[in-house]
């Protein structure tokens, strides 16, 4: 993006067949993903599960940070908060409710943070959101050790893996559909306007504060929902779930694919998610080192994609 902002909403006219092809592809993909648990081994099902979660994270993140160019590093905070909300409610409420709780808690935090931090621009916003995740993590560690006297939480009777699979599939699908709808709406266009030139957007009558905060919260609700859906898989949860790795992995996935496009984050997440799930367990440090190198190379070699994230301001 960057060179042609109009590509956001319109493209060249295409024939009916060319229009139907992607739709058919989507239907086939959806059918394959719905049928996947039946045909896959438990390892491959777990792999698909993890990749779907990555897709939901990357798309959820790019929903706000892609068009607005506000680089959020708070993904780990929303994800972790969702996971905690889920861990606390999962034994007391019927299944999808913990996911909704996770989404709601993350959205609430995003509203509060948005009110404070969305005045910040460029690297200040990035640093603030990064600090936020660490602040929440260390506050939780402090609270758990000094008040409740525990370090982590055991997750009692989690839902079955099949239920979790379809939950994450639903979240990922909802994220993609929401992102697609958002791009076509006035709301989404306003966000692009903010990313291109915030003062001008304001002059044109866009309520920039409201647009930014609401989209930030919407995006955070997906990130929280993913955390909530992932938590039961671990059976044991501690504050390390607020990992900066989640924040960075999400950013890198979206950037590698192209944060300004609808399908970029999906592709980036599928690609890096696959690599990550295979490599992270066996070669954890090597994988993270490669992730860092990827980030550096993307910054140096794909400048247009990345310039989209900075506030354009001199």
């Amino acid at each position, binding site marked *: 993006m960057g060179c042609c902002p109009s590509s956001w909403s319109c493209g060249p006219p295409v024939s009916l067949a060319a229009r139907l092809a992607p739709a058919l592809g989507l239907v086939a993909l959806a059918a394959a993903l719905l049928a996947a648990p039946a045909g896959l081994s438990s390892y491959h099902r777990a792999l698909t599960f993890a990749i779907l979660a990555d897709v939901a994270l990357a798309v959820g993140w790019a929903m706000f940070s892609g068009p607005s160019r506000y680089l959020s590093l708070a993904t780990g905070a929303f994800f972790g908060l969702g996971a905690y909300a889920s861990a606390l409610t999962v034994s007391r409420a019927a299944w999808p409710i913990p996911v909704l709780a996770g989404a709601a808690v993350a959205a609430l935090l995003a509203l509060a943070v948005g009110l404070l931090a969305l005045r910040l621009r460029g690297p200040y916003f990035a*640093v603030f959101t990064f600090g936020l995740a660490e602040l929440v993590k260390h506050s939780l560690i402090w609270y758990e050790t000094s008040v409740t006297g525990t370090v982590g939480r055991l997750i009692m009777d989690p839902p079955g893996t099949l239920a979790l699979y379809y939950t994450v599939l639903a979240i990922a699908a909802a994220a993609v559909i929401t992102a697609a709808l958002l791009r076509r709406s006035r709301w989404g266009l306003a966000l692009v306007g903010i990313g291109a030139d915030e003062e001008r957007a304001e002059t044109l009558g866009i309520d920039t504060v409201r647009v930014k905060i609401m989209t930030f919260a919407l995006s955070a609700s997906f990130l929280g929902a993913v955390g909530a859906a992932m938590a039961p898989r671990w059976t044991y949860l501690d504050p390390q779930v607020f990992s900066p790795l989640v924040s960075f992995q999400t950013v890198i996935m979206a950037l590698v694919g192209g944060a300004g496009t609808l399908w970029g984050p999906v592709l980036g997440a599928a690609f890096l998610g696959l690599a990550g799930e295979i490599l992270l367990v066996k070669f954890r440090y090597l994988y993270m080192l490669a992730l860092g190198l990827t*980030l550096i190379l993307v910054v140096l070699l794909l400048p247009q994609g990345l310039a989209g994230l900075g506030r354009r301001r001199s």
Partner: protein
Amino acid sequence: MTGALLADIVIGGLTTGGIYALVALGLNLQYGLMRVLNVAHGEFLMLGAYLTFTLHTSWGMPPLLTLLITTPAAFAVGVALHRLLYARVLATGEAGGLEARSLLLSFGLLFVLQNGALLVWSADLQGYSYLATPVRLFGTVFPANRMVAAGVALFLSLAFYVYLRRSLAGKAVRALMQEPDGARLIGIDVARLHARCFGAGIAMSAATGSLVSMLFELTPFMGLPYTVTALVVVILGGLGNVLGSLAGALLLGLVETAAVYATSSDIRVIASYGVLSLILVLRPSGLFGR
């Protein structure tokens, strides 16, 4: 409050602050001069610490003497990194995306360095004992290594300040901080100065690491907390303000030490992130601004 406790807090705070001063000065030099918010700054502290650790334990070199190796080595690495990475981003010249892109670059560097260190040295705590003899001071006891480390850090910080004030190169740096365009107009070689200042910033971080390795056990994760501390100090003291950084570092050291005495040591990390968030929120964008 007894005199001994007061001395404990004041001396403890000043020694902590002295170490903060050197690492913060390095960050200030990078951000103040070229707007590169280097979040990998603390990783060079970590590398300096491991280099000193290796030189001391494997070759028996006195830790203080290793400064003569870690500092120039880090300077060279810093200059090379600037040429290889940051100068390229700066050269593409898109003003707005610049800061965010150099930020992403340094986050990438953080990942590479930290995990590289994990591969080389593993995640286990490592350390050595050096100058651990107790020193009596105003009724309290401090290990000698702490006084020495803080003393050297403060000396290096002050020496750098004097260098900035007195030398021609220092004058150029100050000119570049105050008026980048004007500095270019009077013929200052900006690219070269940027690379050198970046190198000098990295060198200060690594030198701090060499000193810190005498005091605490090392892990590959030790860098980031120092980056955050340095960030807080730079924000407190003001961008490009060398004396401000010195004062801010000593102040933060005192406040932290007092806070730890008053509550518990867990509160330290929360306090530094809390202060960072608070300052960012209360003084948005104007903070680093001129």
